């Protein structure tokens, strides 16, 4: 069997259990929230419009954005309540995911329950009053059973949405079946992507069918169908959650951004920790801003970031000092402001560079960004998803007065594809990316030093700064990965023929940790 399928199946119980736990919690919360709100909306017609509109508004926010919004929201909330409860709320992972999915699932439940309750025949309501039912008795004995089929249809819709939407929670660091999809997209592991989609779809289908059984049971007043549906849901959920019982302790949480090098380095760190007898779990696919704050607040323990990224994005600096000076200032500043420790540099740089196909560049006579700027109005620029909103881009554009005919964003893999296909002429590449050599790209010089240095640094969260296991495990990595080695590992994952998983590339790197490279180290 394909090694990627074996890999996918190996992590399935864990991904599935996380996915089911998240979806089930969100759905139950949405039902618990949505049904009483529906009763409220039906009893107080004045509340009906605001409630339904609010729920519909939430629906219009894209799922990914809603998840992302909960991160700063919870951070703010955590800062508010921390003095009161003496602890902080986790702003990454399960909590933001479950809250966002719950809000998302409320609308179909609320709307259908309102429709179901309003649809109960007025004569039946009058009869219920006339035989002497209290409002509560009328709701429980008459309105609820009669509204149940329509309300159940809403719960079914919500369930399918929730299971689908839960795949997005990977982005805020919650493990789900989305981990297959996001890491697969980055590493062009289409088996992973398909596997993730198929697993989520199968889960949604099975859940929908079981809920459908309950719906039919409610419509036909068939208690057996309802029981069978409930039993199926209970057994399925319990079975899916089994791996969570007696699973490994939480251990160290390693963060990774959303590209191959980050996946490989996270796996490498995990491998080092496991070699020291510790357990580790990965939170992959986090955005640049989210991941640093997650580290500062202790949601993750360790990850690799790049000096230039921190310099411009976290410190908000626009000057470009020499490499060593930047590293020194950065380390001091992070320790002072966030109690985040820079453990050391890995030995390579992964800078943002502008790259072109070599023959295209020579045809245009371009070797530097300054030369590029003159031709830019005729050229199309492709970037990754965040470059255009990063300060580096403003700095670059300001320094060279860059003004392209078109600017398009891609996920990194598709960005290289777009360049190869000629859809764009210039891309924002990563200097450690193996595809620069593999696709024979020309990296344009930056004569005005608009882009700072990007030394890869291991960062440690405040609460792990005195952790001896972590230090012992990661010490061999410091200065041990030259850029050629990193490019090689990246290319193993990113190449279109015979790619390997990030885990395998990490094992390749682990076996070839070099003699200490000569790059700068923080004090």
């Amino acid at each position, binding site marked *: 069997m394909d090694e990627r399928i074996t890999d996918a199946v190996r992590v399935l119980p864990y991904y599935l259990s996380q996915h089911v736990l998240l979806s089930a919690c969100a759905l139950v919360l949405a039902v618990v929230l949505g049904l009483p709100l529906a009763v409220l909306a039906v009893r107080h017609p004045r509340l009906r419009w605001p409630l339904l509109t609010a729920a519909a508004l939430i629906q219009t926010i894209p799922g990914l954005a809603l998840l992302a919004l909960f991160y700063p929201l919870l951070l703010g909330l955590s800062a508010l309540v921390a003095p009161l409860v003496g602890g902080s709320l986790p702003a990454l992972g399960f909590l933001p995911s479950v809250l966002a999915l719950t809000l998302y699932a409320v609308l179909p439940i609320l709307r259908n329950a309102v429709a179901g309750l309003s649809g109960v025949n007025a004569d039946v309501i009058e009869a219920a009053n006339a035989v002497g039912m209290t409002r509560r008795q009328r709701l429980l004995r*008459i309105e609820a059973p009669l509204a149940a089929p329509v309300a159940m249809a809403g719960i079914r819709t919500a369930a399918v949405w929730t299971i689908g939407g839960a795949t997005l929670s990977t982005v805020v660091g919650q493990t789900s079946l989305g981990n297959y999809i996001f890491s697969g997209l980055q590493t062009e592991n289409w088996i992973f992507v398909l596997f993730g989609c198929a697993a989520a779809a199968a889960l949604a289908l099975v859940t929908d069918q079981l809920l459908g059984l309950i719906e039919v049971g409610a419509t036909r007043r068939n208690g057996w169908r309802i029981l069978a549906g409930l039993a199926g849901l209970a057994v399925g959920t319990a079975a899916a959650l089994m791996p969570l019982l007696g699973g490994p302790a939480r251990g160290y949480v390693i963060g990774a951004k959303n590209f191959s090098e980050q996946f490989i380095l996270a796996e490498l760190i995990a491998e080092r920790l496991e070699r020291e007898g510790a357990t580790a779990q990965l939170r992959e696919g986090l955005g640049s801003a989210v991941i640093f704050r997650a580290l500062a607040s202790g949601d993750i323990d360790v990850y690799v970031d790049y000096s230039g990224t921190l310099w411009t994005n976290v410190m908000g600096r626009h000057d470009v000092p020499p490499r060593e000076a930047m590293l020194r200032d950065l380390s001091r500043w992070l320790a002072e402001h966030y109690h985040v420790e820079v453990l050391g540099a890995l030995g390579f740089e992964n800078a943002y560079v502008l790259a072109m196909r070599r023959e295209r560049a020579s045809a245009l006579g371009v070797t530097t960004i300054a030369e590029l700027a003159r031709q830019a109005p005729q050229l199309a620029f492709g970037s990754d998803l965040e470059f255009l909103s990063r300060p580096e881009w403003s700095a670059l554009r300001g320094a060279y007065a860059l003004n392209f005919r078109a600017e398009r964003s891609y996920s990194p893999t598709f960005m290289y594809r777009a360049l190869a296909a000629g859809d764009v002429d210039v891309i924002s590449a990563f200097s450690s990316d193996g595809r620069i050599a593999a696709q024979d790209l020309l990296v344009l010089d930056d004569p005005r030093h608009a882009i700072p240095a990007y030394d890869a640094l291991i960062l440690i969260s405040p609460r792990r700064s005195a952790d001896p296991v972590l230090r012992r495990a990661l010490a061999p990595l410091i200065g041990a990965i030259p850029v050629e080695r990193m490019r090689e590992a990246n290319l193993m994952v990113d190449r279109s023929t015979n790619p390997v998983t990030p885990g395998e590339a990490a094992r390749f790197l682990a076996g070839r940790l070099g003699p200490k490279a000569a790059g700068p180290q923080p004090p």
Partner: protein
Amino acid sequence: MSAAPLIEIDKVSKSFDGGRSFAVREASVAVRAGAFVAMVGASGSGKTTTLKTINRLIEPDSGEIRIEGMPVAEIEGPVLRRRIGYVFQGIGLFPHLRIGENIGITPQLLGWPTAAIAERTREVLALVGLPEAYLARFPDALSGGERQRVAVARALAARPRIVLMDEPFGQLDPVTRDAIGSAYRALHDQLGLTTIMVTHDVQEAVLLADQIVVMAAGRVAAHDTPRALMASRADPDVSALMAMPRRQAERVRAVLSDAGNGDG
């Protein structure tokens, strides 16, 4: 000889638009125990509103309703309604409950023992002339007339002394309507009920009721026996309304005699 009335409607007024117009205005009616009272009047004359104030399905703005001297406003609505049977044009059987469960609902709300509910359910089903096999059926398997019989059974299940009816047979075809009307009148006598029935059909009122209350524009225009009202000339509106059955009977007789002549 006349004892205190069982139901007293005392100067009851009700407005649905904050006092600009009144659905019922200072209506007073006294009903003695055992009476069968029909309330007639044009659409919008306030008869249904008046009826519903008795079991507090509608709260009056002013005035008072007393049952055996006790103001109904002092009894909780659901508690009051469990003691009073109610049958209306909409029938309102609970579609998700079997006929037996529908009939037994008020005894169940009153906390009767299960066995007593089952026995009473069979008893009232027989009273309204339906076979016992119907107990396990759902309402949608019954005809309109059968459903209204079930509604009558449901109203009688908890042994109420008072039954309120709002156009109870309005949705039924004339033959069924006549049959159920007469059957109910027999039950009224047999069980010693006190019935107030709202109807727009004066003929039905004359044929079934001991007394007729005529309502016009929210007020009680007349209250007397059918015979007295049909003879009265006091109020032109009332006499016009009460002349209807006789006029219809005369027209029917004319048609019959014409048909007889034609045949001959």
